[in-house]
């Protein structure tokens, strides 16, 4: 009887211990992740009735769906982010392959470090760096004139290309790391077998290297896509007068329009739709999300 009691107490103590152990994580998640989102969700369903008076309603979401301006901006943002993701993937793949399979000894950490160095400066500084390079009186324009490629100064800034460039630059590290990780585990003999059995370089890449790197590709692509869709600084600074990024809409709603409920609704639409795009991407490439997480 007493043994039963003491073992029951023991279990209770263990449970309390576990709870205390998890407490920081629970607090972290609850206070910093869940709570703000719940507040945002509540906010997104409130509608202005008149000055200072708000009521419940779906108006903010309807506004997104019915106003072509907003969903077009989102569509533009999403398509450009997908493009950024693809370009980043294409550029990062050979880099990651080189780091994972060709570089030996001390070269490997040095190459990783070189990828990392730009991230020691803040995103703002990096973007300003690109502005200096690309502006009409900037370095790139000067060099192009020097090389005789153009007769006058060229403006390379303030267009979609500049935005894509900036986002690709910012996303590369996040693509290279998971890719290099995935490729590192690829056995050299698999590649050799691929050639030995008559495969061309392209066949080996398509049928052996890429399928092997798929978890890395998926992980990197999700990160780069999410970072691009949610980026604010780069599109604002490098983007042209025609380029509105969806985050700018959210910013505008919160800061210049004082319309927090609308901004919150946009924020949720961004979360929802970009998640949907990631899900569709996974389905399209035949990858399961949990499987990707497990394998990467």
């Amino acid at each position, binding site marked *: 009887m007493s043994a039963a009691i003491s073992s029951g107490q023991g279990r209770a103590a263990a449970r309390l211990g576990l709870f205390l152990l998890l407490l920081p994580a629970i607090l972290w998640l609850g206070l910093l992740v869940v709570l703000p989102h719940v507040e945002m969700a509540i906010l997104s369903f409130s509608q202005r009735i008149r*000055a*200072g008076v708000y009521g419940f309603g779906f108006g903010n979401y309807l506004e997104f769906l019915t106003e072509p301006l907003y969903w077009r901006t989102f569509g533009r943002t999403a398509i450009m982010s997908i493009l950024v993701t693809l370009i980043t993937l294409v550029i990062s793949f050979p880099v990651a392959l080189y780091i994972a399979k060709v570089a030996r000894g001390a070269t490997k950490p040095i190459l990783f470090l070189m990828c990392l160095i730009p991230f020691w400066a803040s995103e703002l500084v990096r973007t300003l760096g690109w502005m200096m390079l690309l502006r009409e*009186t900037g370095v790139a324009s000067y060099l192009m004139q020097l090389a005789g490629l153009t007769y006058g100064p060229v403006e390379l800034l303030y267009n979609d290309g500049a935005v894509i460039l900036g986002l690709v630059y910012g996303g590369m590290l996040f693509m290279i790391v998971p890719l290099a990780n995935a490729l590192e585990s690829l056995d050299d003999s698999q590649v050799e077998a691929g050639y030995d059995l008559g495969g061309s370089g392209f066949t080996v890449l398509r049928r052996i290297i890429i399928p092997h790197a798929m978890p890395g590709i998926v992980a990197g692509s999700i990160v780069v896509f999410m970072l691009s869709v949610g980026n*604010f600084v780069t599109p604002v600074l490098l983007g042209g*007068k*025609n380029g*509105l990024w969806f985050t*700018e809409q959210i910013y505008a709603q919160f800061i210049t*329009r*004082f319309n927090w409920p609308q901004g919150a609704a946009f924020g949720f639409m961004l979360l929802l739709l970009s998640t949907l795009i990631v899900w569709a991407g996974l389905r399209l490439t035949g990858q399961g999300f949990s499987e990707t997480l497990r394998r990467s």
Partner: protein
Amino acid sequence: MIKNLNRFGIVAAVSLLALSAQAQEKLRLLTWADYTPKEVVDAFTKETGIQVEITLSNNEEMISKLRATQGAGFDLAQPSQDRITGPQAEFGIYKPLDLSKIDSKLFIGSMLEATKKNTTLDGKVYGLPHIWGTDGLVVNTKVAPGVKDYLDLCGAEVKGKASLRAKRPTLIAFAFAMGEDPFKAYSDEKAYAALMDKVGTKLSACKANLKFFWDGKDALLAGLRAGEVTAAMAWDTGGWKLNSENPDLKFIAPKSGALGWVDTFAIPAKGRADDAAYKWINFNMRPEIAAKVAASAGNFSASQGADKLAAGKLKDQFAESFPQAAIDNIKWYPAVPAGLEAIEGKVLDKVKAN
């Protein structure tokens, strides 16, 4: 977004620090760049023993910040006079001013009265004038001598080399330039929306002519200096600053009228150092202090007598930009009724997106 949330976080942290360090009196000031020259702040601290903690901002951010905390975190703010009653009605972020604590003799009488009238809500006054200036055109007169009015920014002379802000002053300016009176339409939301749509269409058509929408003053000035931009809608100060460096760059009061603005003092609803705030206001309006602030900002003070102490150069530049007729033609912003920002914002979004 993140940047701003961070800033809220920093504000919160700073407030906590302020709580713990209450021994020393502190004034938390939310203001514009160049309004608080160091010697003025130091002199104030020396005289009163009050520390001044400065956060730089603009109209929209000031309102957003105060809205986020329902008027806490700052003891004194400096929004433009037309942007007080609207947000106050909507969010209640300011507290009424106790005019008995103000030395009204320090102000230019007519400007004080006009500002009080413009910032009055339900019979209570919320703002006092501090610095005023105008929005007009900064033009490289050598390259683009033909730019005389806002719509000239859409002309062939400055093709690809003009710039604007994607903000409400641009909409107002274009409305005037198109022969309309947007201020009259303020009271009628529908008419105003129709007018703004018209302005938006015009702006969209004009966009091909623009180099970029400028946001930070420094980016614009750099563009003008480098010759990448030859004409822009901007503040008079920026124009005069450039004029001192390069006489070809001039601030021009546009034909349809420069837009006159007044930045004010307003006390946030949950400010904790009202006495310090009033002390700062009275201190800043002393002619010799006001002259220093005006020189730092490059604008004009609402302080009675400060203009007599202003630097000669600024006076000359003002005289060149503003003949008497142009002064008479300045369009002073009336208070913006709540809700108009939403209309303007949507038009601006469309202009940017299309």
